C-alpha cells in the first residue's frame, strides 16, 4: 500500500498499529516528498512522545501487578477449596443415606425389617392394653359386679331399717 492510501486510511482512523508504524518510519526517514512534508511534524511529534513515555515507563509497577496477580490466584484457590469442602461436608451432614430410610435418634436405618421392629417397639411405648388401665375390673365377670353392687345396696338399706 502506498503512503497516500495509508494516509487516507490513517485520517479515517482505520490504520492498524503496524500500518501506523510504517507511516512513522516513512516520515522519520530522510526523503519525504515535498507534498507530503506537511505531515512530518505530526508523526515527528508522536515519535517524540513515544520516546518520552518509553523512558518514563515505570518498571516497579510490574511488581505491584505481580503481587495482585498471585493474591487473586490464592484467593481463587481458597474459594474453590472452601466451596468444594462446604458442598462435600454439607452433603454428608444432611443426606447421610440414600433410597428409603428413616432416622431414629440420629441414626440412619434403611433395612425394612429393622425399621419395622423398631417402630413396633416405639408404638408399644405409647400404646397400652385395657389390662393396664382397668386391672380391677378385668378380674371380675359382669355378674359378679352386679351382685356386689346389689349387696352393697342391700347393706345400705338394711342399716336404715
Amino acid at each position, binding site marked *: 500500500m502506498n503512503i497516500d492510501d495509508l494516509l487516507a486510511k*490513517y*485520517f*479515517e*482512523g*482505520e490504520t*492498524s*498499529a503496524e500500518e*501506523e508504524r510504517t507511516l512513522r518510519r516513512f516520515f522519520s526517514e530522510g526523503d519525504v516528498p515535498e507534498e507530503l512534508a*506537511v*505531515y*512530518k*511534524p*505530526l508523526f*515527528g*511529534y*508522536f515519535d*517524540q*512522545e*513515544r520516546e518520552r*513515555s518509553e523512558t518514563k515507563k515505570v518498571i516497579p*509497577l*510490574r511488581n*505491584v*501487578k*505481580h503481587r*495482585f*496477580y498471585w493474591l487473586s490466584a490464592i484467593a481463587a484457590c481458597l474459594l474453590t477449596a472452601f466451596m468444594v469442602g462446604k458442598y462435600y461436608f454439607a452433603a454428608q451432614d444432611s443426606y447421610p443415606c440414600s433410597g428409603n430410610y428413616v432416622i431414629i435418634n440420629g441414626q440412619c436405618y434403611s433395612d425394612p425389617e429393622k425399621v419395622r421392629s423398631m417402630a413396633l417397639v416405639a408404638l408399644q411405648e405409647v400404646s397400652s392394653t385395657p389390662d393396664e388401665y382397668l386391672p380391677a375390673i378385668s378380674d371380675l365377670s359382669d355378674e359378679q359386679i352386679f351382685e356386689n353392687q346389689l349387696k352393697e345396696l342391700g347393706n345400705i338399706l338394711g342399716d336404715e331399717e
Partner: protein
Amino acid sequence: MSVTPSNVYTMELETFKTTVLPLREKLLKFSLKMTNEGADAEDIVQEAFLKLWYIREKLDGYNSVEALSVQVVKNLCLDRLRAKHTDRMPENGEMLLADTSSPEVLLEQQDTVEVIRRIIEKLPTLQQSIIRMKDVEGYELFEIAEITGTQVEAVRVNLSRARKKVREQFLMINR
C-alpha cells in the same frame, strides 16, 4: 508460571471490566442530568473511564470505586459546563495566538513539532486521550472501546475527528 506483561494487562482489563464498567449506566444517567446533552454526557463517561483506567492500580485504595467514578464524572461535567460558558472552540488557528510564543514564531524556529503539540492540547479532552492512546501508547481501537465501554466504531469516529482536526489546524497555520 511466568507472567508476561500482556498477560497482566489482559487481567487488568478483565478486572476493570468487572469492577468499573458496570457503573456505566449509572454514570451516564448522572452525566446526562448534569450536562443535559446526550453527546456530551456520553463523551464525559468515556473520558471518565479512560481516567479511571490510568489509575487502575490505585483503585483498590479507594473505599468506593463508585463514589470515585461519580466524582470524576462530576468534575468532568463541571469542566465542560465552565468551558461552554466562557469559551467557544475556535474554528481556526486564532486560539494559538494567545500563547507566549506564537505558532508563527515557532514555525520560524522550525519547531513544527511544538505546533502539533499545542494543537493537540487544544482538542476536546476525550479526543486528546484517544489520539494519545492510539498514536503514542499503541493501543488498538478495540482496546480503547473495551476500556470506555463503547463501540469500536464510536472510537474510530472520534479518533478520525481528532486526527483530521489536527491536520486541518496545522495546514491552516502552515499555509
